[in-house]
């Protein structure tokens, strides 16, 4: 039985990785996938000259949680840091695995 959920994808400079992960967890995501990625955007300068990579965080959550995560990112990070984020609708099996019961 497939459930329709939302995948949040965040790509950011690696310096604020831990902060972003805590945002994701605080909103109740039950897990995430983290990978190192490369790329360039409108802010090509990275403060960590040496750590050239960016990080990509992916998590699958309920649509409400996804909106809450995106809202906090917009409020706290979009203005000053190199971060982009987007939502995708995904079909998953075992929907309860991704949505914590509150």
């Amino acid at each position: 039985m497939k459930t329709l959920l939302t995948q949040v994808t965040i790509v950011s400079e690696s310096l604020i990785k831990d902060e972003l992960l805590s945002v994701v967890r605080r909103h109740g995501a039950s897990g995430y996938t983290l990978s190192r990625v490369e790329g360039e955007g409108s802010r090509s300068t990275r403060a960590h000259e040496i750590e050239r990579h960016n990080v990509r965080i992916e998590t699958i959550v309920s649509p409400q949680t996804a909106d809450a995560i995106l809202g906090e990112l917009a409020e706290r990070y979009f203005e000053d840091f190199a971060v982009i984020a987007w939502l995708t609708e995904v079909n998953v099996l075992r929907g309860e695995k991704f949505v914590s019961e509150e």
Partner: protein
Amino acid sequence: MELLVQNLVSPVVLAFVLGLLARWVKSDLEIPDALYQGLSIYLLFAIGLKGGVALTETPISQLIAPCAVTLLLGLLTPFSAYLILTRLGKLGRINGAAAAAHYGSVSAVTFLAAIDAAEIAGRDTDDFLPALVAILEVPGILVGLLLARKTRRGGLQAAVHEIVTGKSIFLLVGGMAIGALCGAEKFASVSPFFVDPFKGVLCLFLLELGMVAAGRIQDVRRAGWRLVFVGCLLPLLHGMAGTMAGLAAGMTTGGAAVLGAMTGSASYIAAPAAVRIALPKASPGIYLTLSLGITFPFNIGIGIPLLIAFAGFCEKLFP
């Protein structure tokens, strides 16, 4: 003049030049990220270990004055840097404070290059210098951030955490603790790995830094002549102050010159990370261009030999 040329023709400096050249001719040379991290861990840990062993062999009475002047330099240089950056450099408060945090802190590689240059010039240095690197690294960044007066919410704590647990202080202080606990006799068992290949590793590291700096030097044109001037003036002013402070504290002439080079250097590992976290509105294009594109190459090529000569000139003043 001879000292300048003599300083330039050393494996360490030439490796840096080769790195610059690699970028300018668009060579496909690239130091893999993991190797770069490995080299920097090796260098920081090795400096810490050697410094720690030296601490066991230096009487505390000889350490107090150098440590005290170093702390004082770390607390004062952000103010002078801020004044010069905002007045002469025409930077705003936030960018001025961000750059001041870099000048208040220290570049470990400039320190190593200065030791190398002092040795080539035939000057003895003090073995406890790594301890001074650790002392100089932290306060300048914090004072610089406070000068901005408007850090991000929770930014200052995050910055303190970033500096104190960041690999450069962690390895330096951790290495020193190990070196001090073990002493020279036990350190001998690891010295074939941490002492003998040290200069070679430093060469490879500078090769990479040359490539990174070359990328920054391209931004210098955009930064304008004011910043170039300030980026060369600050290391000289701070460098001379540091050298005199070192001599006044009873350090060797070579050691005082190295302390001067440290004082005149701008951090580019610990400070950028802390500043980015606490002062995200400051432009990395300004503070990284200043520290890596202007001041670091200036120190490697010109600043360090000048300070060694300056220390030789001043030593008569401090008998």
